[in-house]
């Protein structure tokens, strides 16, 4: 059966048939918005200053993930450890035939000798997993004998996605590195915001910290420039783990609850704009018995500022994009946050939301609810779960919208194909550099409008 023999209708039928298959069962996957599990471990570990990954893999795995994952997340590199400086065993045929354990032993030893690091993280690619290297035993030889902690993250290229890599890394940290510590009142960890995979992670984490600080809570920073291996050690001190995602970070939170008894609280979707942010803060405050007065003061002050700022650009929004239909192609966190903000506060009309992070089946109803319920107006978006670039475009083909919030992969189709304005809000983000930029929080919606309207404002 070749393409010429199919009518357009048959082509669309075939698209639908393939779209209905489990991604693992599909014949192919086209530029999805993730990489492999090892890539996820590599980037997640690299996002903590002082943590040094050691890749036990082929020589090109770091390259592909550096350019295609870390470099694709709106920021050049993640410190020296996340760049091409990452130690790697660069496995060859010799190791494929005779095993790679000796090569790994040499690599760990020489890495200790040469490179600075407070925690070394061995993470494996496809080759050691397929040839059956006993990585665990090799890493064990280096454990506890000296002042250089090392952990082994069981990963490979074929065993999962970069989303899994986040949980695999944190899981290994919990199992192999963390010790119980006395719980400190008012300390929280933030989970579910994956470095690189969520392109605004640096600014998002900073904003959560600012919001929670304002009511007297202390955030233990696990990722980003202020984090360190000591912050990893402090994870069990938290009174509560706050998981900001309808699905990601849940496995880690559960593990922490089992091991250290830390309860967790899930907020599904990035809170963007005053309404969602207030809701977020009030829910957390209830869980942690925060001083009511502090909450009221923080909410009042931050909301007033956000709406005052909004006032400066509300006219532009009204003149340019009043009741504008929009489409979203993004991971579940941003998809939920953005759809709710633009619909509930800006009066835009959500036509279609394509969720690209392939959430597990059990999380999909919650995500769909957050995308379709408690919305202002009468327009409810069609929700799809899809990460194949070709099939995403097929979904968009059937819709009409004027603004497309997606990844930079949609940049060059938005105009010619859909006559829509485009703005990058999700991975990959090759057309943006993102430092502290965030759409999270009271003023996050304003930042979003500032970015989007800057592109499309007209003189009048």
């Amino acid at each position, binding site marked *: *059966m*070749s*393409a010429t023999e*199919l009518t357009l209708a048959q082509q669309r039928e*075939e698209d639908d048939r393939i779209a209905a298959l489990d991604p*693992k069962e599909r*014949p*192919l*996957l*086209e*530029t999805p918005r*993730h*990489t*492999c599990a*090892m*890539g996820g471990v590599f980037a997640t570990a690299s996002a903590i200053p002082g943590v040094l990954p050691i890749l036990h893999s*082929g*020589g*090109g*795995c770091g*390259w*592909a*993930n550096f*350019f*295609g*994952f870390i470099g*694709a997340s709106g920021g050049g590199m993640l*410190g*020296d450890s996340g*760049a*091409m*400086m990452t*130690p*790697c*065993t*660069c496995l060859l*045929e010799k190791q*494929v035939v005779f095993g790679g354990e*000796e090569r790994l*032993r040499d*690599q760990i*030893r*020489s*890495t*200790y*000798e*040469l490179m600075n690091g407070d925690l070394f993280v061995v993470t494996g*690619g*496809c*080759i050691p997993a397929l040839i059956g290297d006993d990585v665990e035993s090799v890493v064990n030889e280096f454990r506890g004998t000296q002042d*250089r902690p090392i952990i082994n993250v069981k990963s*490979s290229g*074929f065993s999962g996605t970069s989303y899994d890599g986040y949980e695999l890394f944190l899981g290994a940290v919990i199992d192999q590195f963390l010790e119980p510590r006395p719980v400190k009142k008012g300390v929280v960890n933030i989970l579910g915001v994956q470095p690189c995979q969520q392109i605004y992670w640096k600014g998002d984490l900073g904003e959560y910290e600012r919001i929670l600080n304002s009511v007297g809570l202390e955030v233990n920073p696990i990722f980003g420039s202020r984090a360190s291996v000591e912050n990893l050690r402090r994870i069990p001190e938290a009174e509560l783990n706050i998981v900001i995602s309808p699905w990601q970070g849940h496995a880690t939170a559960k593990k922490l609850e089992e091991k250290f008894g830390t309860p967790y609280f899930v907020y599904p979707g990035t809170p963007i704009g005053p309404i969602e942010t207030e809701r977020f803060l009030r829910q957390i405050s209830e869980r942690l018995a925060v001083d009511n007065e502090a909450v009221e003061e923080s909410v009042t002050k931050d909301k007033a500022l956000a709406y005052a700022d909004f006032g400066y650009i509300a006219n532009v929004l009204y003149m340019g994009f009043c009741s504008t239909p929009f489409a979203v192609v993004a991971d579940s966190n941003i998809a939920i946050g953005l759809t709710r903000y633009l619909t509930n506060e800006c009066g835009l009309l959500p036509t279609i939301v394509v969720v690209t992070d392939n959430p597990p089946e059990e999380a999909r109803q919650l995500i769909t609810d957050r995308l379709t319920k408690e919305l202002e107006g009468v327009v409810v978006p069609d929700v799809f779960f899809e990460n194949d670039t*070709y099939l995403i475009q097929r979904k968009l083909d059937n819709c009409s919208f004027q603004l497309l919030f997606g990844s*930079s*992969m949609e940049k*060059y189709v938005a105009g010619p194909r859909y006559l829509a304005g485009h703005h990058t809000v999700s991975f*990959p983000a*090759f*057309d943006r550099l993102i430092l502290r930029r965030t759409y999270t929080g009271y003023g996050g919606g304003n930042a979003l409008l500032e970015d989007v309207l800057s592109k499309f404002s007209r003189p009048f």
Partner: protein
Amino acid sequence: MHDFLDELPITDESPIDLTKSTCPTREERLSVAVNAYYGKMSDLVKDTREHNVVQPERCFEQSGNCLLALNAQRLISIRDSVLLFHSPIGCAAGQHSSHELFQHIPLEQGRPADLGFFHAVCTNLTEKDVVYGGIDKLIAALKESDRRYSPKAIFLVTSCAAGIIGDDIEGAVNAAQPHVRAKIVPCHTEGFRSRVTQTGYDAFWHGVLKYLVKKDLPRQKDLVNVTNMFSYTWMDKIELQRLLNKIGLRVNFVPEFARVEDLEIMGSAAVTAPVCPTFADYLMRGLKEHFDVPYFKEPIPFGVKKTDGWLRKVAEFTGKEKEVEELIKEEHAKYMPQVDAIRAELEVTRKRFVAAGLKKENEKLTAIGSVGQGRVIGHAAFLEEIGMSVIGACTIDYDSLIADAFDALVKEVGDFVVLVSTFQAADYSSLFSRLKPDLTLQAPFKGSVIKSAKAMGTIHYLRGDNHPSRTQAGYAGAVAYGNMIVRTFKNDALTKLIGRLGDEPYKAWWYDADPMYFVKDRDKIFKSPDLVKIDGAPVHALDHEHDREHAHAHNGHGHDHGHSQDREHGHSHNGHAHDHGHTHEHGDGDGHTHVHDHVPAAAGAKENA
């Protein structure tokens, strides 16, 4: 300087056997093919002729590259094709950016409308597939690629995982081809196959020669195959096209920016002219052997002198000898004044360095650059052309294919240090820190070289660059690249700032170590202990400043970074012990620094090795 060695020819002429499913690796095909070497260029060439170059085993490596990753970057830009990775998804992640490589180039600049809509698809091998085999999925993927995009060709690249599970690629191709209109071109690029990543290019060309190039096409006497790399830009294409068009020739650019048809007609061209000779080696030989298309390997069109030579070579094969002299005269009239201006500007810079006490009166500005083997030839000759002195070059791999060219280069510009290293960041850091060139040409992501740099320029531009200042090839390229170098010396604020930033991946001792420190049996493989002592190599008073910084860094990091612990793990240092108390002579008053009589012994001789 090594004239007698010409009597030891390199005879690496094995036939291109297209009945095989893929090419041999460079290690199998050639007498020398390595990715680790540090020493004088003249020694490397000599050792090559004497078949005396050894591939060392490294104890320490960093993220490098592989046959698949480097190859995929090039194949993606072939228009009207699909690039299919038979791999887990991570191997394909490098092509997340493929849609955005060229679409910013305005159509007015000659970009074909379809250059940019690329398709990187992947069989997404999972746990189930590696257990039960990925063949069914591969066949389905080939069909689905064809259904989605109706491409002219599907370039199928294979991964480590596909290789280890033993998928029968040829079987899958044969099973799928009758159901697929696109020509399927399998390229065996399993990452572990070869440490010389150029084997990946050979694997690609093998597939192209075997499955795509059409036989028995009428000869097109005005058609020149130009094989270009992804580090040559849209502007380079425009420049080379401009030059060849002027003498009535048409250019068939492959594989970057090409259509599948451009690959199909390669067998009808008058000549194949390389931009990088080793990248295209397998193709050029194959086209000669199977399609009777002649080729030449050098020079390459980088710098004025070499562009002259490249054009003359092309003319020789196309009967344009007369026209080409006219062209060269015209081009020189236009561009030589600009090259002279670059030389003059660099002389001003040099004098500024002399006045500041950074150089002696008769010393040239020095540089280290290069990436691939081809660029070594290009960079070194051009830097000399504009009055600079090359004190070192880096190349990601080395094989005997380039040995004659390297030999000629040494005769042309003198000897210099060569570091062969596949993107090994620490090697670069050590090299640049030891040699301290005035001009550092290196990509910052490849190491913390910028931390010891005085002036850092762009090592190469990328294919999507479409500004005239980002031309590198031909005469316009000589001027644009030369001007980039001139600009590099005009403001070093960023270089200094980055140098001061705290992020420090390596322990301080590394910057005084040998780049091959972590090679097993280092002392046996790399004989001379004073590898960096090059006759006539200039030294800089500026070194004092760097030494102070180094001394500071040493104190800051502390010296006893656990070497007793290393020894516990059998990390014995033979020879004089690697004493971090620093017996080497820093800032010894006469400006001779970092030419140590203390070279740390190799970590090599492991008790368990």
